[in-house]
């Protein structure tokens, strides 16, 4: 048992449901007790979905415990088949069903005989994988199912499209800014003269999956979901894939160069020409995207050497770390991810761009690390935003898990050239602005070099007398926390328990000395 009250990645079935409900006309049926259909609330509220979430539960209750599901699951599947006429029904196990050890595969086999829809059982183990791993696995499973079906039926189409084309794999519901990223990627590929063959799973039809191999290559923008599918397609059909996340000016260029390399394998033969994107990259980098210019501008100068902490999923944490370190000259004191299963890749990506790497899914560890490092800004998930609030450190949200405010209506991609602009704004606005910076200097300096306490929970054994409290109130709000901390740190170092105005001034002198 583990004492916990917050987690970064959800349980496995959430991942399966996210993939299933992203496809069009696919229905998921959970084998779960009453109340486990909370996914519907999340999708309806966070994504502000207009349509009913295509997820229902085959309810596990006392009777099921006593006698087993028997006909119930099969009935629920066939009933849904009649009601909604979906192309595919995905039976989704939950933590409950994995302990019940019912033969769900048997239900699936029986149900598929009597229904027009295809029926599959999501192959995920609740106790072994988390939300993201399950999503990755489910997507691969669905793709594999339909490609094998097509092969059996002999309507597999593996001839390449006339023009260079790509599949985008891994855009799905409740993903962090996925919708905007998708639009930006479409634009990028269009600019390069590449046709989009298919985007999966978001908005895709399973009946079209057999046409996946027609694309020249696969683009997997996020590490968490889609890699398994890309690997399968590579192994079965020899389709190359590109998994460099086009986030930040440098990596977008990397990604585009890899695309160029891939399509130049076939295009001299099929189209009798070679593609060269260098001009496009240069034009976009220097004049269309504002991020490169921003990094040269004097605004960004003020950020030089400022300390930041990054935490999030592997894709976003790694990309943002690289952007901060290489493209903006910010010092990344610590970067980390909760994707423990992808630790090796993550370490390799960021090891030269930060002082310290933290791999954990325990938010208290992250909180304590932030309290210890005392960065000028945090880039993390919703949890880090709250840690920042408590410590009075600004935070930009760069990764799931997120709240509704991170499903903006406006266009906010993180990928592509427009993404670089968005990220530049986010980073710049997160750090205290130039003028505030000067005020900080006046009131006692900013870059605190030592540690106050080593944990997030700062104990309050110090007493502020009335005058010093009054004095503290006079200091502008946005620097007050810092002054308070500096003074308390000074007091602790000098074994002072009662803080007077004199102590405050002494602390200020001590720090500026």
């Amino acid at each position, binding site marked *: *048992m583990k004492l*916990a009250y917050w987690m970064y990645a959800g349980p496995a079935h959430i991942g399966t449901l996210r993939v299933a409900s992203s496809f069009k006309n696919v229905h998921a049926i959970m084998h779960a007790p009453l*109340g486990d259909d*909370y996914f519907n*609330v999340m999708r309806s509220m966070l994504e502000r979905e*207009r349509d009913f979430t295509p997820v*229902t539960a085959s309810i596990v*209750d006392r009777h099921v*415990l006593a006698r087993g599901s028997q006909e119930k699951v099969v009935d629920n599947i066939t009933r849904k088949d009649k009601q909604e006429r979906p192309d595919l029904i995905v039976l989704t196990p939950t933590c*409950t069903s994995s302990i019940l050890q019912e033969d769900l595969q048997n239900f699936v086999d029986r149900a598929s005989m009597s229904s027009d829809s295809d029926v599959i059982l999501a192959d995920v183990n609740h106790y072994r994988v988390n939300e993201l791993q399950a999503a990755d696995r489910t997507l691969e499973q669905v793709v594999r199912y339909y490609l094998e079906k097509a092969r059996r039926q002999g309507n597999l189409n593996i001839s390449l499209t006339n023009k260079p084309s790509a599949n985008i794999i891994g855009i799905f519901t409740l993903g962090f800014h996925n919708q905007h990223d998708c639009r930006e990627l479409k634009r990028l590929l269009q600019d390069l003269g590449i046709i989009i063959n298919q985007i999966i799973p978001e908005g895709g039809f399973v009946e079209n999956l057999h046409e996946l191999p027609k694309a020249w290559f696969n683009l997997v923008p996020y590490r968490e979901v889609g890699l398994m599918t890309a690997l399968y397609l590579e192994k079965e059909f020899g389709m190359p894939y590109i998994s460099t996340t086009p986030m930040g000016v440098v990596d977008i260029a990397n990604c585009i160069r890899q695309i160029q390399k891939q399509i130049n394998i076939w295009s001299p033969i099929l189209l009798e020409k070679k593609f060269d994107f260098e001009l496009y990259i240069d034009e976009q980098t220097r004049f269309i995207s504002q991020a490169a210019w921003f990094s040269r501008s004097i605004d960004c100068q003020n950020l030089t050497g400022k300390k930041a902490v990054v935490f999030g999923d592997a894709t976003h944490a790694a990309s943002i770390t690289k952007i901060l370190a290489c493209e903006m000259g910010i010092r990344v004191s610590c970067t980390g991810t909760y994707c423990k299963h992808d630790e090796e890749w993550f370490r390799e990506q960021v090891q030269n761009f930060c002082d310290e790497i933290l791999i954990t899914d325990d938010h208290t560890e992250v909180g304590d690390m932030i309290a210890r490092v005392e960065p000028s800004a945090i880039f993390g998930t919703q949890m880090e935003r709250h840690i920042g609030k408590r410590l009075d450190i600004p935070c930009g949200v760069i990764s799931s898990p997120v709240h509704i405010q991170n499903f903006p209506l406006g266009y906010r991609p993180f990928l592509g050239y427009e993404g670089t602009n968005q990220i530049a704004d986010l980073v710049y606005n997160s750090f205290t602005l130039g003028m505030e910076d000067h005020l900080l200097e006046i009131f006692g300096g900013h870059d605190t070099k030592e540690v106050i306490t080593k944990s997030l929970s700062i104990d309050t054994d110090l007493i502020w007398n009335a005058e010093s409290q009054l004095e503290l109130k006079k200091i502008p709000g946005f620097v007050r926390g810092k002054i308070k901390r500096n003074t308390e740190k000074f007091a602790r170092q000098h074994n002072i328990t009662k803080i007077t105005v004199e102590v405050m001034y002494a602390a200020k002198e001590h720090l500026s000395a």
Partner: protein
Amino acid sequence: MSTKISETLTFECETGNYHTFCPISCVAWLYQKIEDSFFLVIGTKTCGYFLQNALGVMIFAEPRYAMAELEEGDISAQLNDYEELKRLCIQIKKARNPSVIIWIGTCTTEIIKMDLEGMAPKLETEIEIPIIVARANGLDYAFTQGEDTVLAAMAHRCPEQKKKIEKTQKIDNKSIQELFTFLPLKIKEKMNKSLILKNQLPLVLFGSLPSTVASQLSLELKRQSINVSGWLPAQRYTDLPTLGEKVYVCGVNPFLSRTATTLMRRRKCKLIGAPFPIGPDGTRAWIEKICLVFNIETQGLEEREQQVWESLKNYLNLIRGKSVFFMGDNLLEISLARFLIRCGMIVYEIGIPYMDKRYQAAELTFLQETCKKMCLPMPRIVEKPDNYNQIQRMRELQPDLAITGMAHANPLEARGINTKWSVEFTFAQIHGFTNAKDVLELVTRPLRRNNNLENLGWTNLIKL
């Protein structure tokens, strides 16, 4: 699947394929209500994920609850449950030092048959903190019934009253009589009579309400010279009310049937079956019923109710004649429907997860009377509803308002049906005379909002 509206109260039961919150959500309001408690939910990541998302920002405020997350080793019994729970509870004791730890059993602990009730007393003596076990799981219960399981378990922990009453009563009577020895005999007798009247048997109210609402209700009863001797739950675990054979108990919420049963059967209390104090009509009926039991004539209650209706006029004008459809997920539905019918609304259907006809008897009768009085058709009551069928019925009936869970609210709005999230009724203050306005504020919000948007021509926002 008939969509006709019947003349008498009809009860139906559907498939139980409906959306509701898991009953473990009760920790959200109970940990706030019982200030010195700590709630430990013994379950899996699924439970944790639900809590963390359903409770939103509360998570970040160092709540007094946590998950004991079961891992593969716990499921396959490679780890010793008792030792594991002991380790966690000692950790909790060190960090928070609560007066009580409440274990919330979940579906998983049911399925693997973890003997929480057996382990708790042993651990309790070992770590010297009371441990209460409540099985608030999705296999057996829906949403607010979670509170019911916790309070039913807590009822066992209330101190015994029997002896204490007799003793104090004796002393009271004696000392008061001594005080008045100088008075003539006739007056003394009169005094005694009134003393008996005022010296009513103890009344304990059960149901968790925000403390302001609880004191409002206590005050309403005080006006009728009825003293509330305690609440289950109290603000602190250490202040639990005393219970016993002579104690009267009365519920304030419609989902507390297990608690009521426990109080009657195990603690020998006398249950006052009354409609629930939701809406001015409900509040009045509730007070009247309590007064009736204590043989007290109510004073100024009718005027008080009238006053409240007066103050609601603007809202009533907005909803009179409008129709409403309860999809059902929190068991407040019967009382709310009854209040809305009294407000002049037409209720097509009352979906409800579970219908205890005995515990809610007075409320059901009151609902019927209200329909007759208002000359409105009786709604159909659908137990264990099927959301899919309900949406088909709604498509036909086109109600002016659907009271529904969050899973369906946005999709229904996109189809031009006004909705109100049912969860808000659970968290808002809706009890007593004072809060009737809040209920209507909630009910009318979508109508008021949509009045503003009506002429813009974008009611239907889905592609057909």
